[in-house]
């Protein structure tokens, strides 16, 4: 038998050995859809990344962490070219974050956080996966896609380069809770709305007599003051928030933000140089309309899920109310208790208000 044939036979003996196989080339793609933003991660084996972009620059037959870090731009570019996500509104932009390392049975994997920006809220996500399609036809991407509380999995690559995924319509309850939390969080982290409300509520435990602030004699008038202001503010911003959320009115974001800052200055200075002393709820209502547009811009960033728009809007609004009510309940009993003190009437009222106005002035300058 000739030597070439012999060598052929010898490898086919390996057929027996291969009857027990090993780990194939997989990547792990995890995506979470939240509104119009998608976050997630991709795990690609160091071995596979070497084949894709060439990590071993010093050709010593091993890849070290320094070489992986140096290849970060190349990996990012490779990803941009070989992984495309799109919604029915168009393609999404993919950004990869700082690399990390994860260990699996067949060796180390490069773990990259991903941020994906899509036009509009995806109802359907199409994923075009071409990683290693030339180098290793057996390579697959194992996808785990979570949207609105539901997770689906799929195998990417191979014969089916492009696959489409219907994102489950968010269940109403899920959307409600999600947006409720967002509302609470927004009011607590958005100092401007709270400071505006505070400016209107500081004088609620006082009355203006003979050009001086005096403590209200009883709880009832203070309670009525608070109730009127909070209700007027709530009513007003609910109206504009709803109008803006359903795209019936739209204001430029910068204008809204500047006007909100101005509204705080006005409300705070009114405590120092009082013009309107009895019907502050009207101020609350008028400026509350403005603040509603501010809330609407947050909601526009998050996006309202189709099919659960109303319920999400109600959830967000209730979240805002709950958040603001919690602050009122925490602050106003203290104010009521302090109302007779000079500290409150001569200190907190004028100087606190001046401070708020000064802060709002800084915002106004920044936002103009």
């Amino acid at each position, binding site marked *: *038998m000739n030597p070439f*044939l*012999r060598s*052929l*036979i*010898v*490898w*086919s*003996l*390996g*057929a*027996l*050995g*291969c*009857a*027990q*196989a*090993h*780990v*194939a*080339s*997989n990547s*792990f793609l995890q995506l979470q859809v939240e509104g119009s933003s998608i976050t997630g991660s991709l795990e690609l*084996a*160091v*071995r*596979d990344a*070497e*084949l894709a*972009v*060439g990590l*071993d620059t010093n*050709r010593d*037959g*091993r*890849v*070290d*962490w*320094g070489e*992986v*870090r140096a290849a970060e731009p190349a990996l990012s570019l490779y990803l941009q070219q070989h992984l495309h996500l799109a919604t029915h509104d168009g393609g999404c932009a993919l950004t990869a974050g*700082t*690399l*990390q*390392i*994860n*260990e*699996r*049975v*067949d*060796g*180390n994997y490069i*773990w990259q956080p991903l941020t994906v920006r899509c036009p509009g809220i995806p109802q359907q996500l199409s994923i075009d996966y071409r990683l290693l399609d030339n*180098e*290793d*036809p*057996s*390579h697959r991407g*194992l996808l785990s896609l979570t949207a609105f509380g539901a997770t689906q999995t799929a*195998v990417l690559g191979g014969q089916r380069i492009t696959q489409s995924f219907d994102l489950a319509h968010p269940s109403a309850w899920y959307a409600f809770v999600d947006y409720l939390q967002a509302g609470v969080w927004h009011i607590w982290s958005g100092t401007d709305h709270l400071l505006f409300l505070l400016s209107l509520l500081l004088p609620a435990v006082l009355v203006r007599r003979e050009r001086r602030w005096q403590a209200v004699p009883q709880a009832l008038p203070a309670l009525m003051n608070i109730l009127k202001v909070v209700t007027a503010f709530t009513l007003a911003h609910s109206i504009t928030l709803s109008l803006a959320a359903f795209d019936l009115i739209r204001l430029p974001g910068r204008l809204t933000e500047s006007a909100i800052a101005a509204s705080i200055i006005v409300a705070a200075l009114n405590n120092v140089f009082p013009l309107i002393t009895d019907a502050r709820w009207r101020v609350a209502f008028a400026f509350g309309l403005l603040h509603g547009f501010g809330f609407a811009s947050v909601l526009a960033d998050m996006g309202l899920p189709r099919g659960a728009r109303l319920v999400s809007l109600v959830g967000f609004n209730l979240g805002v109310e709950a958040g603001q009510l919690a602050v009122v309940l925490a602050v106003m009993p203290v104010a009521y208790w302090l109302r007779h003190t000079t500290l409150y009437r001569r200190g907190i009222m004028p100087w606190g208000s001046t401070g708020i106005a000064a802060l709002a002035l800084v915002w106004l300058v920044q936002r103009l």
Partner: protein
Amino acid sequence: MVVAVAGVFSTPATARPYVPTSDTQVLADLPAGAQHAELSARRIARERIDVALPLAQFYINQARTTGDLRFLGYAEAVLVSWIGSSQPDPTALVLQATIQQSRHEFDRSLVTLDRSIAARAYNPQAWLTRATVLRVLGRYAEAAQSCEQLARYADSAYGVICTQSVLALHGNLPSAYDTLQRLSTTEMMAEERAWRASELGEMAVRLGQDSDAERWFQLGLTLTPHDFYVRAAYADLLLRLHRPEAVMTLLHGQGSIEPLLLRIAIAQQQLRDPGLERSRDLLAASFEAEASRGESIHRREQARYLLEVEAHPQQALEVALLDWAVQREPDDALVLVNAARAAGSPERAQPVLDYLRMQGLRDARLYTPSTSRS
């Protein structure tokens, strides 16, 4: 079903990602053929078959010796332009069939082999691979016919080893063992001798002659140290003889090959070794990934994992039954029988045992209580 079983592994499967502290920390050793720079050779292979065939052969060899299935994908990429045409190259087809067989695509592998044989009758490697596939499927009569064809075209020793290995599963174990033992090895290449040693080792195991089996496996490993198939078979023998320390020594540093990691995990289980936790996590993640790919190459391993590492005999039995529907080697029967006994329903393994008796399989591990020694 696979999905249901995969649910068992849904515990956090891998460690969390981290940022290495040193630039010099080595993350991967690249075996030959895995470098980016070698892609140029692959491009040439698309134009020239005299480059494509040795390169694909090299990749398949690398898959065998490193235990890295990626090399099969590389081989496939090299072969793709040579098997799609109306007159495909017969050697390229055999290589393709080997890849398919390694992925347990047995029926497709047989079709590819028939195409290769149709393109070239003088085709010993196609006949040998065909015999191997049919043997895994338990189709012994057809496997023996393929061995006869092999004997017509190749050195007689190949035919003898091939035929006797099939006969040994088919009612003639003692005589096959005897014949192979007396076969002269003076003319053989190292790989051929290793093949003989490994077949003899497996026959000795089924005869219940464990100390002889150990000798054969050791000889096989001396001849081809990288053959992880022999290593796994030897490790199984040691595990059955309750020698987990010897398994840890035998498989030291080979945990990246999944079937070997399984044996390490079983040994760690017997030793109550703290390293077991990590092995379990890695294996669980790996089975989970395979399940999400919709593949089932490792059902035999998965069944053993469930039975011997996780101690879930019920689930192990279900997976073993699925495995048996696809491949029918003695080890597939063994895990099924052990799982059925452990699950308290030995009657579910009875059809398999009846089938094996009918086929004439003799295996000391199957017909006596699993703890018996020779």
